[in-house]
């Protein structure tokens, strides 16, 4: 069934978009991530312009992270105080990111910057996660005890605060910094940033796994709502029809994904997610390195009349 998208200005197959939303939703529910890094390239692949894709995906991620956050909230798996400190940084970072985005666009080469940051970020995070998952898996095979979690330099910073639900005592400085970084990256690359946030919170901030996904979803939800608003006000590029189809597919897929995720062990889940992120990163790298089938591209600068 074809449906004409009012902002993207092209007809799409509703079932194809629904299926894409459901597939990405499944992955996002399984790993507790937003899935923007998968959705945006997919939409560009079916012919939607990158600008519209990035803007519309933001609202899609907001919907799926809200439904996720609600169910984590009921299970008391969200740390409200940790989330609010993260948000202080996140909102600042998003605003900074949007400002940088405008500056980069004025300089040209924004597409290259986006592609390069995708490659660097996804391959780094992907391979780190993959090798860590592999090591953890080997350890459990051998039956060895996981190494004791030690405190690092981050725990020596001042301005400490007690985060009750997570049962950690931590300085607010690294938390705010992490929020800024995620907000900044998210605004520039059009991703929620959950797949970077979760590992950072686990390995750097030592947030227990019980609250990490729920809390990161709150940050994703707020930054993506903020991004939707910014895109709608400044560029008029949010396609509500496209977003709605993606949302319906996404939230449905996410529920099944979450159930599937509970059946898989933690280290296997990390291994799989690492592999997935790595492969998306490599795909972007290949696109930069091999000769494109067409050296020329056209960009319309707006229709007049």
């Amino acid at each position, binding site marked *: 069934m074809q449906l004409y998208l009012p902002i993207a200005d092209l007809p799409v197959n509703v079932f194809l978009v629904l299926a894409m939303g459901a597939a990405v939703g499944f992955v996002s529910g399984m790993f507790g991530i937003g899935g923007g890094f998968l959705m945006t390239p997919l939409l560009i692949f079916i012919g939607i312009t990158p600008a519209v894709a990035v803007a519309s995906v933001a609202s899609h991620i907001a919907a799926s992270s809200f439904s996720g956050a609600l169910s984590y909230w009921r299970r008391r798996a969200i740390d409200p105080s940790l989330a609010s400190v993260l948000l202080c940084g996140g909102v600042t970072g998003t605003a900074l990111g949007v400002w940088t985005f405008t500056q980069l666009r004025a300089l040209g080469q924004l597409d290259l910057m986006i592609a390069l940051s995708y490659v660097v970020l996804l391959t780094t995070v992907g391979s780190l996660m993959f090798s860590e998952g592999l090591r953890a898996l080997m350890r459990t095979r051998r039956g060895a005890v996981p190494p004791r979690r030690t405190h690092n330099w981050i725990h020596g910073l001042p301005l400490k605060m007690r985060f009750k639900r997570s049962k950690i005592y931590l300085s607010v400085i690294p938390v705010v910094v992490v929020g800024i970084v995620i907000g900044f990256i998210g605004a520039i690359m059009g991703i929620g940033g959950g797949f970077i946030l979760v590992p950072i919170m686990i390995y750097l901030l030592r947030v227990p796994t019980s609250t990490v996904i729920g809390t990161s979803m709150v940050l994703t939800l707020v930054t993506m709502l903020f991004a939707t*608003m910014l895109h709608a006000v400044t560029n008029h590029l949010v396609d509500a029809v496209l977003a709605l189809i993606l949302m319906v597919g996404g939230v449905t897929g996410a529920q099944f994904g979450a159930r599937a995720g509970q059946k898989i062990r933690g280290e296997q889940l990390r291994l799989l997610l690492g592999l997935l992120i790595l492969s998306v990163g490599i795909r972007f790298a290949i696109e930069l390195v091999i000769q494109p089938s067409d050296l020329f591209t056209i960009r319309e600068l707006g229709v*007049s009349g």
Partner: protein
Amino acid sequence: MRRAALALLFVLLLGPAARAEKLIVSVSNHRVTVTPNYSGEELVLFGSVEKDATTPADRKAYDLVVTVMGPRADMVTRRKERTFGIWINTDYRQFLQVPSYLALFANRPFEAITSPEIARRQQIGLNNVLLTQRVSGDFADVVPNDAFRSAFIRLRTQRGLYREDGSAVTFLTPTLFRTGIPLPAEVPIGTYDVEIKLFANGAFIGKTETAFEIVKVGFEQFVATTARQNGLIYGLATAAMALMTGWMASIVFRKD
């Protein structure tokens, strides 16, 4: 004085001949509406060549070239080059106010209709249509085999937005003709100008113009206008929709 008299004679001789034929045309639909299930359409242009008393008797066969031009826009063509092992955009050309949709149809191959000189002047064929580029501060069209110009036409043709066809116009009778105007699914919204040029024995003898428009209606129109004019409200509505969808999903899929 003598030159002026000659010129006057020339006009008197040619004048009536140039107005000897009248072109009457119509498009099957002057207002194409883009609805939720729009996925491309084909318009039909039909018309006839009306002769009058002054038409030379030996003029029997006519040739027609139909040019359809969509709303104009500025476009940039970029070329990728290998730098430090990766392919990045290095060079670009800006095309100024070029048609976003361009179709040229004729009843037989363009080069058979008229001389290269007249074809260039009358912009017959994709190679002869004026596509203004900004070349280092200057505005000009370049030679047809320019790399950026041909890449631009090739890419637009691939998307079905630029096309030329030397057999699309059919003469039903020696003076009655018709042609289809295919509009792709991702058609630019706006006003389309149609120009019909008449040739006989290689000479350009007249033209007429018509137009049609492509508009969004109903829901599409509403969404597009709201997004453009009330960005804040639109954004708030989208954000609220996201929250509603998320909340509904968590209710529907609640496990208890």
